[in-house]
């Protein structure tokens, strides 16, 4: 091995070099995305069926609809859907709906408290925004809430008097899901008890394969479950408050760069380490006849 090759390998094995390069590439992508702009790159799904389904679900609401927002995202993955959730909430408020936020996980409660604070600071009419707090018991708590979703005594404004009737009193349930409690839990625990309650959902991309089948069965009336569907919805309704740009959140160029880098890493891994499946080493030995 020559000294030059050795020096090169030594540089490439500097701790943190590859993550640093990845972050640098993404940072460059974000800066260039802002500088170049334009419509050359679009993250919105050209087949905007999911965005249209969400819009249709909101269109079907009556005037002054009572909407239950079940905020149970994971703290770690919420930033991916934050813009979409805010856009849907803004859309609902723009249509005159009354929102009641409830959480069945402690993490979701933290997010719900922050979103409530944001909406109140934005000047949303207190009579149209209500905090139902945290309901303990996970799935058991959710089942109990079907018939009994009591706010703390004296905290409910008059416009939310119907809340005492439980989830059945709402015109729509908007489920912001995470790993613990999400659209699947709602489809399993609430839909069998309230088959007429429309449920719409917003989930991070990684939950999409788990949740999408419920859309096909009609247990969900709408689902925004991928990065591209989120972008399509944001494009349709416009930027919510607190999101930089409706069409580029998190940004097309950095996403493209990141995916290309990921593909390069996968290609390198495949080239240097052939997967065992299908090879003689990993194949199960056939039993003698």
């Amino acid at each position: 091995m020559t000294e030059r090759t050795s020096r090169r390998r030594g540089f490439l094995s500097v701790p943190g070099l590859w993550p640093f390069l990845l972050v640098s590439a993404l940072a460059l992508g974000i800066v260039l995305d802002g500088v170049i702009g334009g419509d050359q790159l679009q993250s919105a799904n050209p087949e905007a069926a999911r965005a249209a389904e969400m819009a249709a679900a909101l269109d079907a609401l009556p005037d002054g609809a009572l909407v239950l927002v079940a905020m149970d995202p994971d703290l770690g993955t919420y930033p991916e859907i934050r813009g979409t959730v805010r856009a849907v909430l803004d859309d609902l408020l723009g249509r005159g709906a009354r929102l009641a936020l409830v959480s069945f996980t402690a993490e979701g409660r933290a997010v719900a408290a922050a979103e409530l604070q944001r909406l109140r600071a934005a000047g949303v009419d207190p009579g149209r925004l209500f905090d139902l707090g945290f309901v303990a018991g996970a799935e058991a708590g959710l089942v109990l809430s079907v018939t009994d979703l009591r706010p703390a005594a004296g905290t409910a404004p008059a416009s939310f008097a119907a809340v005492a009737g439980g989830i059945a009193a709402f015109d729509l349930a908007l489920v912001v899901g995470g790993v613990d409690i999400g659209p699947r839990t709602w489809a399993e625990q609430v839909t069998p008890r309230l088959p007429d309650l429309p449920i719409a959902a917003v989930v991070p991309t990684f939950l999409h394969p788990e949740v999408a089948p419920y859309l096909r069965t009609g247990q969900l009336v709408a689902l925004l479950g991928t990065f591209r569907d989120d972008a399509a919805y944001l494009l349709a309704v416009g930027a919510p408050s607190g999101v930089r740009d409706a069409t580029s959140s998190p940004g097309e160029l950095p996403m493209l760069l990141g995916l290309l880098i990921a593909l390069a890493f996968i290609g390198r891994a495949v080239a240097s380490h052939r997967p065992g499946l299908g090879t003689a080493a990993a194949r199960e030995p056939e039993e003698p006849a």
Partner: protein
Amino acid sequence: MNGLVGTDVAGTAATWVAAVMTVAVWSYFTGAGRIFRLAQYLLAGLATGFLVLVSLREVLVPRLVSPLLADPAGDLIPWIGLALVGLLVGARWLPPLAGSLPIALLVAATTAFALGGAVVGTLLPQLGASMLPPAPQPADLVNGAISAAITGLVLFGFLHGVRRGRVAGLAAGTGRWLLLGGIGGWLGFLLVSRLALLVDRVGFLLGDWLGLVP
């Protein structure tokens, strides 16, 4: 305005804390394990404190203590809850049977809800949706056939410990590849999800903290 020169003190402080903690977590890649561990401890401490606060403010006080103080004879359920809490807290000093009662109830109730919901809310509706309609279109037939073939081949892939001929071996191998393809697809969703989060965080540092991008 950004986190470096903001006029809102609370907002600026929050941005600085978030930015510093982000960099602290990323320092793990450079081998700075102590800083990363500190960030972990901080997260664990904050999460524990938040959970205690939520439990007290939104569960124990309004749903257990207040009803008992307001009307001790009104409802039996809070008393049962209190007794179970007492058993759980005092499990260390009580006979094993008494201490395990609340745990057993918790596990049994959770399992019952999860299992019942999975059958009624997932298994049966999904089976129903997989069945062909009474007058199927050609596309339905093709979709159904492909679904059935993939399901059968993947199930074959899990067939272990039985005699397997060449055809069955080929089917099992195909099933394992299909399974791998499905897992790969799921990992693709996971990759996009995590990449969006990373881009969001880098964007936060560049925009909200440093003000380099609008």
